[in-house]
C-alpha cells in the first residue's frame, strides 16, 4: 500500500518535471520567434513607407543624405560584390581544408589545433578583422577597395564555412563509402560520385550561412572597403555596402533619411531571407537522395 503511494507520488514528480522542461522549450521558442517577428515588423513599419523603386534602382544623387533624390543601388550591388567575392574565395580555401580535416586527419592532434584556431577566429569580433585588414593595407600602401573588402570578408567567412562543411563531411556514414568500395569503386569515384552527392545539400547550406554572415557585416568593411556613391568598375575602387548604408543614413539628423535607413535594412533583410529560403529549397531538392 505504502509502496504504491510512493510510486504515485514519484510518477507525479516525473510529470511535473516533464511539464517544466516542456514549458521552458516553448518559452525559448516563443522568445526566438517573437524577436524575429518584432525585428521584421519594425523594419517593415519604419522602412516600407520610404521604400520605392528609386531606392532599388538608383545610386545616391546630390543631396541624397540630406533627404533628396536617389537610391542605394551602389550599396546593394556593393554588398553583393563583397559577399559574393568573399564567399567564392572562402570556398576555395574551406572546401579542401574541410575535406582534409574530415577525411584524412580526423583524429590527428594537429587537426584539433586547426579546429581550435578556427573556433577562435570565428569568435573574433569583426571590427578586429577590419582593423587588422586596415593595418595590412597601410603597410602595403593600398587604399580602401573592393579587393581589400573581399579579402577581409573572406577571413571572416572562412572559419564558419570550414567548420560547417567539416561537420557535413564527418556526417557521411562510413558504411556508405564501404558500399561504394564494395562495388569496386576507386577512391576518386567514391569521393566524386557518392560522397559528394551525400554532402552537397549540407555544403550548400554551409556556403550560404557564410554568405549571410559576410553580407551582414559592417565593421570589417568599414575601413577596408570604404564607402562611395558610385558602383565600382574595378577591384581597386572603393565600394559601398548595405550595412554601412544603414549606419550612415541612421546617423544623420534628418527623419526622411533615417526612414531610408530602415528601408535599406529592409532590403538587406530581404536579400538574406531570399538567400535563406533559396538555400532551403535547393538543399531539399539536392537532399532527396540523401541516405540517413
Amino acid at each position, binding site marked *: 500500500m505504502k509502496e504504491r503511494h510512493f510510486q504515485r507520488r514519484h510518477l507525479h514528480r516525473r510529470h511535473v518535471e516533464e511539464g517544466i522542461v516542456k514549458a521552458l522549450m516553448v518559452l525559448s521558442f516563443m522568445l526566438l520567434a517573437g524577436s524575429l517577428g518584432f525585428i521584421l515588423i519594425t523594419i517593415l513599419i519604419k522602412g516600407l513607407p520610404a521604400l520605392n523603386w528609386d531606392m532599388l534602382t538608383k545610386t545616391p544623387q546630390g543631396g541624397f543624405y540630406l533627404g533628396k533624390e536617389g537610391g542605394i543601388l551602389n550599396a546593394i550591388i556593393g554588398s553583393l560584390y563583397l559577399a559574393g567575392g568573399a564567399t567564392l574565395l572562402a570556398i576555395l580555401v574551406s572546401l579542401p581544408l574541410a575535406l582534409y580535416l574530415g577525411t584524412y586527419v580526423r583524429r590527428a592532434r594537429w587537426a584539433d589545433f586547426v579546429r581550435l584556431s578556427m573556433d577562435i577566429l570565428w569568435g573574433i569580433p569583426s571590427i578586429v578583422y577590419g582593423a587588422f585588414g586596415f593595418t595590412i593595407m597601410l603597410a602595403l600602401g593600398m587604399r580602401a577597395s573592393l579587393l581589400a573588402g573581399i579579402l577581409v570578408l573572406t577571413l571572416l567567412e572562412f572559419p564558419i564555412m570550414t567548420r560547417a562543411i567539416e561537420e557535413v563531411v564527418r556526417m557521411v556514414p562510413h*558504411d*556508405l563509402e564501404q*558500399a561504394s568500395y564494395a*562495388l569496386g569503386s576507386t577512391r576518386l*569515384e567514391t569521393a566524386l560520385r557518392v560522397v559528394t*552527392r551525400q554532402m552537397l545539400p549540407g555544403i550548400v547550406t554551409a556556403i550560404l550561412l557564410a554568405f549571410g554572415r559576410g553580407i551582414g557585416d559592417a565593421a570589417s568593411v568599414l575601413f577596408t572597403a570604404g564607402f562611395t556613391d558610385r558602383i565600382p568598375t574595378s577591384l581597386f575602387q572603393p565600394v559601398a555596402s548595405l550595412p554601412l548604408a544603414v549606419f550612415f543614413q541612421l546617423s544623420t539628423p534628418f527623419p526622411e533619411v533615417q526612414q531610408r535607413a530602415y528601408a535599406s535594412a529592409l532590403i538587406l533583410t530581404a536579400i538574406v531571407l531570399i538567400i535563406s529560403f533559396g538555400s532551403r529549397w535547393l538543399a531539399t531538392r539536392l537532399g532527396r*537522395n540523401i*541516405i540517413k
Partner: protein
Amino acid sequence: MDPHIQVRDLNVHYADNHALKDINLDIPKRQITVIIGPSGCGKTTLLKSFNRFLELTDQTRLSGQVLIDGIDIYAPGMDVTEIRKKAGLLAQRPFPLPMSIYDNVAYGMRIHGIQKGRALDAAVSRYLEMAGLWEEVKDRLHQPAARLSIGQQQRLCLARGLAVEPEIMLGDEPTSALDPFSAQHIERKLLDLKQQYTIVLVSHILRQAKRLADYIVFMYLGELVEHGPAHEVFEHPRQERTRAYLEGLI
C-alpha cells in the same frame, strides 16, 4: 570439390588482437558456404579478407594467402577494384547510394564500363528482377532509393552487387537487420543465385545456416575449428567444440 576461394595460412591482427589464426580453407564453387560461430570469433574478418575489405580499417595486419581462381588477391600489383568487382558484398545493414533506384543499379555498370545507353536500361531491369525487386519498383525507378523500405533496400543492394557481374557474392549477416518476411525473400533469392554464383555468408542464426548451407565453416575464437559439407557437420560434427556450439552450449 572444385574450390573457388582458397585460404592459405591466413593470419589477421587488429592492433594487438590476433583475430584470425592460421586459417586454411577451400570454399566450393557455386555453392552456399555459411560461416558460423559465436560473436567475436572472426567470422566477419574471414569474410572481409575475401574482398580485401580489411585494409579499409586502420592497424590491420594480414599475412598468408587468399586465392580466388588460383590467384593470390594479396599479391603485389593486384588491382583491388578488380577483386571487389569479382567478389561482391552484401552488408549487414543495407546502404543504398545517395541516388535513384535506377542509378543505384546502374552505378557499378557505369564505373566499370560494362553497359551504357539503351542496354543499361535492360540490364537494370534484369538485375532488379534477379533480386526480386522489379515488380515493386518498376514504376518509380527514378525515385530516391532512400525511400524504399529496409527490406527493399537490401534487395536493391543485392541487385546493385549483381550488376557489376561478380562471380562471388559475400554476405555479412545480410538478413539480420530485416523483418522475417524480407529475410525470407533474401534467402530465397540466395538459393536461386547459387546456380550461377559462389555465395559465402556469415550467419549467427543456426536455423538459417541449416536452411541455406551446402558447406559449413565453424569458427571459434579466431580459429577454424571445423569445415565440411553441411549435412556432415550438422549431423556428425567431428570436433567437440562444434558439437557444443550446435547444441547451444557455447
